[in-house]
């Protein structure tokens, strides 16, 4: 089980992430949604202990894995978690594999590294995992080079590598962004099945609200490095209380008739250096009032969900 509490991240004096909390249990899928630049990937990197590599550090909060805080773990110990207990799938399968090595050896390495398997054992395991990921003729695929495979197939290989050491938690950072729409659906369904079959805890990072609606149990909506709303997926979709969540849901394309035009959210996510005062969303918010530019909103809890908006109590009455 993975539990992140009040996580804050800084690069020097810049604070791109603060107050992010969530929990995922085995067999559960948590969606982290938000536009590009809202801090989703940074959250994933923090959990993987990769911040020192890019010059960042955790300034507050905890990342608990199986009840123990791992933020203070030394690099050597963290390596056992990475790939061993927590798997990470990144967004670009095209470039996530070593171009000079065949698929087999690349996947074998993970089991050799984390499970102390010999070459033959690791290969047997690789073939088995590729099979469960519905890759046809896994034994043959092992002898292929990455450039001989399609994007969807490469993404499956990347998932196989993340699963090879049987981790408890899988973090998928926009796993389908670089893929064709048809392949996207396959990969999402595959991840969904893996959660059930292997009792995985899945953290699905995406900007696609329709994917979240289909697969997730819980969701965290992020904006400008903060969680702005979180709760069970049904509650959030039925009664989104934060205007940003409402706007994201309104952006899901529906229907084919000409009357429903594609909608968007005006403006862009502020950069780290000029996060606005008060509520970070207020410059783009249709309901913003004077208080929003001054006072950062507290979470307003309702049942299992909570929204950080001054008008959360009334906001779920969606504007027509």
């Amino acid at each position, binding site marked *: 089980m993975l539990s992140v509490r009040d996580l804050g991240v800084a690069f020097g004096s810049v604070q791109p992430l603060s107050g992010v909390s969530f929990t995922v249990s085995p067999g559960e899928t948590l969606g982290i949604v938000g536009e590009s630049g809202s801090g989703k990937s940074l959250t994933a990197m923090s959990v*993987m202990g*990769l911040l020192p*590599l890019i010059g960042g550090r955790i300034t507050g909060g905890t990342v608990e894995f199986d009840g123990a805080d791992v933020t203070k773990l030394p690099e050597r110990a963290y*390596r*056992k*978690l*990475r*790939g*061993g207990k927590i*798997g*990470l799938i*990144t967004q*670009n399968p095209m*470039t*996530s*594999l*070593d*171009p*000079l*090595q*065949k698929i087999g*050896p690349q996947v074998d*390495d*993970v089991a050799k*590294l*984390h499970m102390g398997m010999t070459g033959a054992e690791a290969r047997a395991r690789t073939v088995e995992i590729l099979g469960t990921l519905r890759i046809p003729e896994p034994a043959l695929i092992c002898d292929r*080079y990455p450039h001989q495979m399609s994007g969807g197939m490469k993404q499956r290989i*990347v998932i196989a*590598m*993340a699963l090879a*050491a049987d981790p408890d938690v899988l973090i998928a950072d926009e796993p389908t962004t670089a893929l064709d729409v048809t392949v996207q659906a396959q990969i999402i369904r595959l991840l969904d099945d893996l959660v059930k079959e292997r009792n995985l805890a899945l953290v699905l990072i995406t900007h696609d609200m329709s994917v979240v609606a289909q697969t997730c149990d819980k969701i965290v909506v992020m904006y400008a490095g903060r969680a702005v709303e979180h709760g069970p997926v049904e509650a959030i979709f039925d009664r989104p209380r934060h205007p940003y969540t409402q706007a994201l849901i309104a952006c899901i394309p529906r229907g084919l008739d000409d009357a429903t035009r594609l909608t968007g959210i005006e403006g862009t996510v502020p950069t780290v250096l000029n996060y606005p005062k008060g509520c970070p969303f207020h410059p783009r918010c249709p309901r913003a009032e004077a208080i929003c530019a001054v006072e950062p909103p507290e979470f307003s809890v309702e049942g299992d969900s909570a929204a950080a908006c001054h008008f959360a109590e009334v906001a779920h009455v969606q504007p027509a």
Partner: protein
Amino acid sequence: MAVRSLDAFARMSIGRAFSSGVGLVAGGFLVLLVLVALLAPWIAPFDYAAQNLMNANAAPAWPHLLGTDEFGRDVLSRVIHGARTSLSVSATAIAISMTAGMALGAAAGYFGGFFERAVMTVVDLTWSFPDILIALIFVAIIGPGLTSTTFAIAIAYLAQFTRLTRAQIVRLKRETFIEATINLGAKPTHILLRHLMPNAIAPVIVVGMLAIGDGIVLEATLGFFGLGAQPPTPSWGAMMSSGTAQLFLSPWVIIFPGVAVAVTVIAVNLFGDELIRALDIRDRLRGA
């Protein structure tokens, strides 16, 4: 596994380098030259050190096809044995230089920070000395001879290999697949040896190939100045040097070793160019 796939890759590319007309001629000549160097004692018509003062400075004619020098030694036999000296000294020196350069460059590029700055400063310093000066330092320390020449050439090319390897590693380090490997919990040694080096090595091999040509010239230069091979060891540079004395009397003594150096270096460079084309790495050789 990494070695096997790299090997296949290299074989494929070298095959492709031979596939063009220029590549075939230049590569064929080099293969021939290596064979000549290896088989020198068996194919040289005469003993390279056998003197015959009665027949000194003889013009090319049977049985001395390339004539004789001022001691009546067979020039052809000396050119053949000279190939052995030139190629072995240059290849050994470049092998040392390449190994050390790759290790230093990879470590500097991967670990970065103070270590990188320290290594690169020292390495750049060696680059600022002319090759001849480095050779003179070695001659002063361990005396003239092939060992000094070898080390001088090795140090002269160290900076090139170090900088090139470092540039490759720094570039590759940011690639997604390296990030992915880190995400899977791999150790730095695994990342460096298994993923970074195999991906970085192709341009280093080509520069190594081209450097062998430069090494031959440098060996000849040092030999010409009497800092390299000592008599009676035949070396193309030393032969040319002794030939200067009878430049007008018996020009063949200086011409044939000179031609050997020129043709060899041209062949090495042409073949190196074909390799660059075959490996498709022209871009990656810039900025190093």
